[in-house]
């Protein structure tokens, strides 16, 4: 019996299958078929199927304008913004494994990330990725503007884009506080001080003193929008928790949802813009 097996192996070694044959064997096999539901995408039919039957790829149309896939046209900036967002999601989750948003631990968790994790660059990937995303989103907006791609029928996708731009900045801003060092605390203090001056809603804003009931002021230092944002009169542990939740849960969910709509709309509005 052993003899028989050895002979079979020898036989197989003698006529090595071509890479082509291996590829075909895999792409026609049951496992591949069960996952992708079509053969290797090198025929028109399978290329169409590749896009249509994949939940991620089907955000794309099956075919696009040739001019629309050129780097000189889109600068890849929309895609890059999305790639950076994905990178931030992954590295952000890893950072969350270590980081505790309390005044007692936050700073030392960050120090530990630097000092105790071998080759630890998760924080760097996350921070530089965040800066890069802000830049990429600006440049994406710039290219969309310069190609006039906000013109009908893409007006509303531009509006969604502006909201995404705002969310990107807010994500970056809320994240800035989390290292809980002097840089973080005072940048957020400078930034959030503005809220005190919100017309009507901030206690140092114009009109706020008009909101009174029977001589009792409604908008005070302890009840205005600045207080609500910080959870206190100044940046404190309560602020850290608020920003942490906004940064890690709320804004990413909203942004991801809007991105899905944004991509869907690119497709529904006729794919990447091009001259008529």
């Amino acid at each position, binding site marked *: 019996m052993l003899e028989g097996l050895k002979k079979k192996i020898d036989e197989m070694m003698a006529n090595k299958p071509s890479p082509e044959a291996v590829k075909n064997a895999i792409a026609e096999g049951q496992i591949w078929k069960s996952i992708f539901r079509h053969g290797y995408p090198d025929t028109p039919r399978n290329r169409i199927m590749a896009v249509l039957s994949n939940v991620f790829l089907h955000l794309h149309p099956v075919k*696009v304008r040739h001019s629309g896939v050129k780097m000189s046209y889109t600068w890849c900036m929309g895609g890059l913004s999305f790639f950076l967002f994905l990178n931030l999601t992954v590295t952000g989750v890893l950072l969350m494994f270590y980081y505790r948003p309390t005044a007692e631990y936050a700073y030392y968790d960050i120090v530990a990330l630097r000092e105790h994790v071998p080759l630890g660059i998760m924080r760097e990937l996350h921070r530089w990725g965040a800066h890069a995303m802000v830049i990429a989103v600006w440049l994406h907006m710039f290219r969309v503007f310069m190609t006039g791609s906000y013109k009908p029928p893409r007006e509303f996708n531009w509006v969604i884009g502006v909201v995404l731009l705002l969310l990107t900045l807010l994500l970056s801003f809320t994240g800035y506080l989390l290292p809980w060092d002097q840089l973080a605390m005072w940048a957020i203090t400078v930034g959030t001080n503005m809220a005190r001056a919100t017309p009507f809603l901030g206690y140092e804003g114009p009109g706020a003193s008009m909101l009174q009931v029977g001589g009792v002021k409604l908008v005070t230092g302890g009840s205005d929008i600045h207080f609500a944002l910080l959870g206190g009169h100044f940046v404190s542990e309560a602020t850290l928790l608020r920003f942490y939740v906004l940064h890690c849960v709320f804004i990413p969910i909203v942004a991801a949802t809007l991105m899905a709509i944004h991509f869907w709309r690119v497709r529904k509005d006729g794919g990447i813009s*091009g001259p008529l």
Partner: protein
Amino acid sequence: MHFIVDVINSLFNPVTYFFGSLIGFVAMIHYREKWTEPQLALKILGGVVVALILAMFNDHFRDISTKSDNVPIFIMVFGVGFFTWLSFRQAVVNDRRLAQGQPPVEKETSDKKVYVWPDLVYVEFIATIVAGIALLVWSLCLHAPLEESATQAWTPNPSKAPWYFLGLQEMLVYYDPWLAGVVFPSLIVVGLMAIPYIDKNPKGAGYYTFNERKFAILPFMFGFLVLWVSLIFLGTFLRGPGWNFFGPFEEWDLHKVVVLNNVNLSEYFWVKLLGFLGIGLPHNPIIRELPGSLLIGAYLIALPPWLTKKSAFLMGLLERMGVARYAVLIFLAFSMAALPIKMLLRWSIHLKYIVAIPEVFFNI
């Protein structure tokens, strides 16, 4: 060497910086045919790089530029520069073709459709890998900053917002927080959202062009380059302790004192102009601020219709756009102009507030 550094430092102040960037902007638009030529563009890039390298010999400048959180600003400045070039280059080429009755370059391939798999997917794939490697290298080379543990006990000086908000922080020099920190940012967002509904020019959709969309591109680029990117640069490199202005190679002196003798409009009006009447500043804030309020009202309500009637160009715009769109456009344009106008008033006549009712935090 010291002499050159001193001369450069003394050339820099908010006024020269603003007018410098304004002149640069105008020149950029005017000479777009020239600098978009790759050869000249490369020379300009070379010049900038050499200047930057020379500047790095200065200890102070090097300290600030190599602060790890400021590195992204260089990436942004060079990125914005490069992509401004790329878009203007393509616009200039297309404009030449359009002038000869040819379609834009994009048209040559826009009717042809290619499969997403593989033509788009592989571009995405390669871009992902390149971006991933770039980010990895950046992260390996440069540590994320970490200063001392946060404390309310002492305030660093200068205290700066994250870099992407420095343009807004710079506005605080000229306007109170309720305008610079709340109203103007909201208007920027609303204004950006309004662009597709204001710009009814059907031309220039889906290809690069300048000539066909001048009046859309000019205000957008002015806002983006002169009022946003360049103010971020100013806020990072030229604003030091106390938010005082420093030259690029000037040590940040904690004790630099800048005399602020700014004067309110009410004082100009009641004390300086009507001083001979001897009434002084009225106690009633409404009367006291009447001149300033009238001025603001005139700027926002009376000036636009008057200008529109005077100008054939604006009249044509009004006819093409309809009243509602035109009104929104003019309001946004006048709000954007409010920043440079206040800058000019501050620099020329040391005007502090046009309307000042500090009792209710209403200062303009």
